[in-house]
């Protein structure tokens, strides 16, 4: 079974985002870049499948590849994925992809995937930077694949018959979905805690192949950007809550007065 995990790099969750000199760019200074956390869950899920298949005796071959695109720094995240246990990686390297829209990125990744062997495509349920969930779904559409989104865990993997059973939360209940492979699944956290890269993993990763692909500006432009980021704004800092003191009748009249005169909402 060949699994490909599509990963993106995002700023660390603790990053204080600053807007750059142009209003539609963010200031990259001081940002620590990480694997998009949901993509990291996808890597963990892929490695678990590999371990499971490796021990069930039916089929021992399972490979996990990573597919990523982005500027040079993306390589750090690819190396981390390889050190966690992925077998190889394909890296579409281009600085101009930094602000490419989800449509262009999915077109680009899908065109590369057409040259790759896979049974299962995994990715995160969303990107934590722009809160986008579009890329994997676009890819599934582009490749004509079945897709299941927001999957917490896999409850059954039938490598011989090429089927996988997914469990996802839906409105306080669980949906159990069985799909035939090839398919694309977007991953939620579930019960997974992404493994740390071990020393052995780091050593082995040195010998793993990162296939670098460069694309021309024309090729990227050919896909045709569908959206444009005009500007970024930081969320307004929340005002402190106002607490009214006194007996209930006094508090209520003070509240009504404030809503009418200060907040002007009634």
């Amino acid at each position, binding site marked *: 079974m060949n699994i490909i995990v599509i990963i993106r790099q995002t700023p660390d969750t603790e990053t204080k985002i600053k807007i750059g000199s142009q209003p539609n760019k963010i200031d990259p200074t001081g940002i620590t870049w990480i694997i998009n956390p949901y993509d990291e869950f996808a890597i963990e899920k892929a490695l678990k499948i590999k371990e499971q298949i490796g021990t069930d005796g039916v089929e021992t071959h399972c490979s996990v590849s990573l597919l990523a695109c982005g500027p040079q720094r993306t390589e*750090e995240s690819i*190396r*981390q994925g390889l*050190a966690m246990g992925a077998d190889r990686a394909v890296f579409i390297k281009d600085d101009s992809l930094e602000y490419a829209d989800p449509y262009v990125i999915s077109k680009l990744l899908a065109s590369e995937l057409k040259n790759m062997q896979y049974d299962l495509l995994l990715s995160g349920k969303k990107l934590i930077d722009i809160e986008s969930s579009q890329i994997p779904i676009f890819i599934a559409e582009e490749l004509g694949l079945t897709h299941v989104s927001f999957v917490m865990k896999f409850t059954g993997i039938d490598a011989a018959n090429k089927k996988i059973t997914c469990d996802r939360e839906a409105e306080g209940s669980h949906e159990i979905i069985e799909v035939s492979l090839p398919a694309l699944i977007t991953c939620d956290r579930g019960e997974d805690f992404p493994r*740390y*890269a*071990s*020393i*052995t*993993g*780091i*050593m082995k*990763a*040195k010998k793993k192949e990162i296939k670098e692909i460069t694309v021309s500006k024309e090729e990227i432009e050919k896909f045709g950007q569908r959206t444009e980021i005009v500007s970024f704004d930081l969320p307004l800092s929340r005002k402190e809550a106002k607490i009214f003191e006194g007996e209930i009748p006094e508090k209520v009249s003070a509240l009504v007065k404030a809503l009418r005169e200060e907040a002007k909402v009634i």
Partner: protein
Amino acid sequence: MQKTVEVEKESLSFKLNNDQALLQKTIREVALENFKEKAREIDKSHRFPRENFELLAKLGMTGLTISEEYGGGSMDYVSYAIVIEEIAKACATTAVILSVQLSLCAAPIEKYGSTELKEKYLKKLALGEYLGAFCLSEPGNGSDAAAMLTKAENKGDYYLLNGTKAWVTNGSEANVYIILAQSTPAETLHATSLPKHKGVSAFIVEKNMLGVSFGKLEDKLGIRASATCQVRLDDVKVPKENLLGTEGEGFKIALSTLDTGRIGIAAQALGIAQASYDLASSYAKTREAFGQKIINFQAIQFMLVDLACEVEAGRLLIYQAAHMKDQGLKYTRQAAEAKLFCSELATKAGNIAIQILGGYGYTTEYDAERYYRDAKITEIYEGTSEIQRLVIAENIIKEIGERIGEPA
């Protein structure tokens, strides 16, 4: 005629390589997520953090610098310094546990041990199945190590060890100990006018050998969970193949072992200093006094600026010493400089952190007071600051001699 200019391929670089950067990111997360919170609890309870060691073992950190051949990671000493610093930022106790494992126990076995000893001990140390310790000091002698009273009598098939070793990190928790003992009888030393240190030998002693026992856990100012205690040897029969190196080579082994150890302790001290700086600076950015954030006051700024400069300087000293070791160069002076500078910096940084946090810094509500307590030992163990100055002085005098063409 045109001259071709040879361009040196590797210019001076301050950038970690890919493996080191990934290792730093990983161990930082590991330490933050698993050791930081617990550091306070084990400081209070004196409980040896076995689960921390086990996690490090699972990740291969217990074999970080041991060669691949014996199941280790074959990583360089810059990586070692990175790992110890990152762990120390979260928990100085866990940092010294690993530092002793790698540089005081595994490293001398790898450097001086026979193939059999390496097969027997290194693999288990690398996998973290064994925890290691190193025993040089005694209740009556520390810096004057050659004055040791622990004796090893050569009985043919085995050595008979008797004596008491003091201040042993990982003491009662370890499985395997490097023990330094006087193996030359006093009368021989006297008759041959051999200096005492030339009679010292190093042995690998296992915990379960008959006659090995432990004193009570020391109640210490800082790094309170590292199971420091006395190791007592009462007619312990050590097989002759457990002699490390040759008879009389022990003191040399101890000194070269401490050279490596000092990189670890410097890195541990640096981690404490960095943690103190991080805490004090973020506190200063939020705490208000006289109607503004205290970081706006120059009194606070200057304290933080001094720390920021010195932490950077300390890290460069450590990386220099580690890099020289990795290059196979002599690094005794550089390791001593790194250890001296960083350990004194750690105590200073802990002190400043408390000062900036004021009353809060003096309580256990914040980590500043623990950093201060944990820091002090780095000025004492693996060679006091005074010994570091002696080591540096000795090397400087030698270098001056070489420069002006006079023997030292």
